Each structure stands twice: as C-alpha cells, then as structure tokens.
C-alpha cells in the first residue's frame, strides 16, 4: 500500500450504512423555498390563463432539419462504433475493478455506478440526446450476438408484448433505487456486482427473446436516458436528425403502458432520498426495534406508489372524448412530469454529481487500490467551489425546480388541449396542475426541511 491514511478496522461496514459521499447539502433557506413555491403557483395559473388554445406540438411536423453534415456524422458507422467501443471499454474497465478490485469505498466501480452512470446520464442525455442507448454494453453485446449468429439485427424470437410497455423498466428502476437508497450494504462490492450481473443477464436474455425492443422498453438506464433525452434539442423525424425546442421534443414521448410507473419511481425515489435523511424520519426509524431496512423499504414503496396514484387520479379526473379512454390518460400525460423530475434531480444531486463525480474520476485511475495512475487523474484535487457557495447553490436549486415546473405545466397544457373535449380543456387540466404544484412544493419543502 503506498497511499494510506490508516482507518481502524471495521470502517467499511459503518460507512456503507451511510451510502457514498460525505457531507450533504445544507437545507435551502425558507425564503427561497417559499419564493419557489409561490412562483410555481403563479406560473401554473398564468399558463392556464394565457397559453394557446390550439395544440402546438406535433411530432410529425415539429423540428428544424439539422445541417446535413451533422446528420451524416451522427448517423455514421464510425460514430456508432466509437460510442459502442467507448461503452464497452468503460464497462470492461470498471467491471475489472468490480471483480478484481478491493472492497473499499474508493473502488471506482461504486462511484461510476451510482454517480457517473446514474446521475451523469441525466446531464449527458439533456445535452446529447439518448446517450445510454448509444453506449449501452447490453445493446452492444446483444448486437454482437446477432451478428455472430446471423440473426436479423434487432429481432428476437418473439414480438415484445405491447401491453408490457415500460413496466419492466419501472421494475428495474425500482430495483436500482432500492439498492441505492434502502439496502444497507449498498456500498459493498459484492451485492452491487451481483445487481449488475443480474441486470446484464436479464437484458441479454430479454434481447435474445424479444430483440432490441426489449432494451428500449425494459433497460432501466436506457429508458431513463431516452426519456430525459426528450428534453434535449435533438430529435428524429422520418429518420432525419432534427432540432426541436425541448417542449416540442418532449411532446414526442410515446405513451406506453407503464410510463406513469417509470415517472412515479423516478420522482418518488428522489423525494424519498430527501425524506429519509430528515431528522423526523431518523428519529422514528431509529427508535424502532426492527432493522431500518423494513421501514425504509415501506416508505420508498409509499413514495413511489403515492406519486403514481396521485398522477393517475389527477389525470383521470376530467371529462373525456370517445377517442381517448380515461384509463389511457395517465400514460398520455406522464411525459409532462419528466421536466419536474429533471429539475428536482438537478436540485437534489448537483453537488453530489459535481463533487463525488470528480472524486470518482480521480479514483478511476487506481481501480485496484494499488496506487496506480492509469488515466493520469490520480493526483487531481476535488474542487469544492460549489459546497463553499451555499447561497449560489440554493438559488440554482430553486431555479432548476421552477424551470422544470414551467416546462412540465406547459407540456401538460398542450396535451390537454389536444386530448380533452373542448368544454373540459380548462377544468380538465386543473387536477393535474394542482398535482404538479403539489409535487413541486413538496420537493421544495423536502429541500428546505431535509
């Protein structure tokens, strides 16, 4: 061991009960939380009062053609292969750390999995579009298999059952957030490795049976990334690369069964993450005689199911036309919660991503904890500028939440004027509007109280 600051035995276990990362963000000041909540309310009703009365977004016509050279570059085999190679190299590199590295918190596998992948796919997809799809090791391996076996690429033995929709992805996302936020050994190498192996196994079997459609519907990371990518400016129309406003792009989310569950797990789990660290919840669970994992699991389920039920009830509480059954409404409106989720995730994870992300990049140079410097990053220092400026941080968080809320409300409004019968267009979107205000204010409250 070259670099050592000796820490007494048994530290691994205690730290793992805590999760990755050290200090958490300070709560946001109450004035800012209130300002954010008032802004959310005002914006919501302003949108309702002044926004357009005819649907504005249409996937079939929206978007400006991207320059020819850019389209050619993005669709080129070279870029595809480069992205796949990057994904596989990163996967094998981190996989080696996971299998051969030591079971310590500085094994870069943990930071890569929880921070660079899970949190990082949000900014990456916002900027570049569906990046995980382009680098996904599961997709690459599945494509290689079909090349080798001579099967038509993308096809499986069976057609993917349409009514499954995104439900498998919702289950996968829940499995991830449970591992991250509830499972006591979430930072022990063994269980995380097992989770990843199970994930990869399910993806490969699924794509062999149902083709790559399975990955587009069931891979939690791919579904998450592709959903967030709908808030980027990049889209496709008739196979051509187009530039769209994020709002127009968001409208192109295809509603499938389970979409509302995906959204509910993403939002509910992030809210739970704030909640579980609140003094009130700590006091309650630590007084209990049962292990913390039980009440935490229950609370996570309640948060996710609660968000899903509120969304379902709020979207269905309206008059409908004959062409759109009431039961279809939750999935048809679920896309409008995505910006609220992204805003809240920015608020919740910004410091963690920036600071623990840097830490992970430093750790990646030394995957086996031997003092190596493979990538030349081992000697970098983490920049804690963000932590040192808590006011800037708090303002950024509230702005992110408010912007997410505006985009969400506008998206829901446009969908409402498209789908709802004319005499229900205003009253019909009120329940969802109130639910969104509730989510945003609830999110701000948790940022303030946690």
């Amino acid at each position, binding site marked *: 061991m070259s670099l050592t600051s000796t820490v007494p035995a048994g530290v691994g276990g*205690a730290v793992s009960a805590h999760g990755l990362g050290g200090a958490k*963000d300070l709560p946001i000041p109450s004035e800012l939380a209130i300002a954010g909540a008032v802004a959310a309310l005002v914006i919501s009703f302003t949108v309702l009062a002044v926004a357009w009365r005819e649907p504005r977004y249409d996937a079939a016509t929206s978007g400006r053609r991207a320059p020819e050279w850019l389209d050619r570059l993005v669709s080129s085999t070279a870029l595809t292969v480069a992205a796949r190679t990057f994904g596989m190299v990163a996967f094998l590199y981190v996989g080696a750390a996971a299998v051969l590295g030591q079971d310590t918190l*500085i094994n870069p596998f943990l930071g890569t999995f929880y921070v660079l992948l899970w949190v990082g796919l949000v900014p990456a997809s916002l900027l570049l579009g569906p990046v995980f799809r382009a680098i996904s090791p599961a997709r690459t*391996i599945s494509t290689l*298999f079909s090349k080798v076996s001579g099967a038509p690429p993308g096809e*499986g033995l069976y057609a993917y059952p349409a009514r499954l929709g995104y439900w498998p992805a919702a289950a996968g996302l829940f499995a991830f957030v449970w591992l991250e936020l509830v499972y*006591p050994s979430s930072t022990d190498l063994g269980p995380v490795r097992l989770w990843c192996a199970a994930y990869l196994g399910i993806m490969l079997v699924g794509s*062999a049976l149902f083709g790559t459609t399975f990955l587009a519907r069931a891979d939690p990371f791919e579904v998450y990334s592709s959903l967030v990518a709908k808030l980027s400016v990049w889209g496709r129309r008739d196979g051509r690369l187009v530039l769209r406003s994020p709002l127009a792009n968001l409208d192109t989310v295809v509603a499938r069964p389970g979409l509302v569950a995906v959204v509910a797990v993403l939002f509910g789990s992030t809210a739970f993450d704030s909640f579980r660290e609140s*003094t009130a919840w700590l006091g309650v669970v630590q007084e209990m005689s049962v292990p913390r994992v039980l009440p935490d699991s229950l609370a996570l389920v309640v948060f996710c199911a609660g968000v899903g039920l509120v969304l379902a009830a709020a979207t269905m509480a309206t008059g409908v036309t004959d062409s759109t059954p009431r039961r279809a409404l939750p999935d048809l409106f679920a896309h409008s919660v995505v910006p609220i989720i992204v805003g809240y995730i920015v608020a919740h994870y910004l410091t963690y991503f920036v600071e623990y992300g840097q830490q992970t990049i430093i750790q990646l140079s030394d995957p086996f904890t031997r003092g190596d410097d493979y990538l030349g990053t081992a000697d970098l220092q983490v920049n804690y500028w963000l932590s040192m400026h808590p006011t800037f941080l708090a303002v950024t968080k509230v702005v992110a939440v408010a912007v997410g809320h505006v985009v969400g409300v506008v998206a829901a409004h446009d969908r409402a004027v498209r789908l709802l019968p004319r005499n229900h267009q205003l009253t019909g979107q009120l329940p969802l509007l109130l639910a969104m205000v509730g989510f945003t204010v609830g999110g701000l409250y948790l940022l303030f109280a946690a």
Partner: protein
Amino acid sequence: MSARALARLAPVVLVLAAGLSACGGDEEPAPADTSQTTSTDETAAPEDDATSTPTDDATTAPEDDTVAVTVTREGGDFTPNGERVELGVGQTLVLTIDADEAGELHVHSTPEQDIAYGAGTSEHEITVDRPGVVEVESHDPDLVLLQLEVR
C-alpha cells in the same frame, strides 16, 4: 426448431451458464476482509486528521467559541437520536462521550473523520471546514446520532 432460432438462443444459454457458474463461485470468497480494510482516501489530507484528536482529560472546558454536545451510550442505546446541531465553518464542536463500553463514531464530513472512544467519559473535538450537513454516526449499532448543520 430451425438452426437460426437455435442460434438466437445461444445468448440465453450463455447467460444462464455464466449465471450458474457465477453463483457457484460466489460462495467461496469471504464477504470482506474487514480486518484489514485500508482506506486510502486521497483527500484525507494530514491536517484533517488532526481535527479529531481525542483529548482524554476533561480539563479543557469548552471555550466561548465552541459548541458542546454530550453523547451517552448505554449498551446499544444512544442519545441524542439524530438531533440537528448548528455549527460554524471551522468552529469546534466539543463532543463529550459518556459510554459504558468502547466504540467508534464516524463523522461523515468530506473527508471522513473517525472518533474512537473508550469506556467512561471522554472528550473529543470536531471541526468541519466546508458548509454542509454532516452526520455523526455510531458504528455497530449503526445509528445517526447528530446531524451537524455547518454554515
């Protein structure tokens, strides 16, 4: 079944085989060599290590510019139970630990700080040099005792 369909089943078989062999292999390695866990945290600068130096005599009474908190341990029961404590950046928290058995506390600042305490009453100092919420956690049983709101 056609040869093509069989070929498409290959990944399924491979994954199942890999999965089974992985399960078989997983039982062998011991869960963790916790006895020799050596954390090599690059950010653990030497000056930070000095902040958690235990001072075993109670002669240094808390000065004006410190915050004093008493932690009691009776068996597996700790007080306080996840209480919030406000602390300034760089301000010293004087932690008086009154324990009936020895143990260890972790201060989840960045970087981490560890406090080993013995049975009886001991006094320890903590400072945190960046704003944030820092949990002070006991290990075995795993409980959050304090949340330091450092600003």
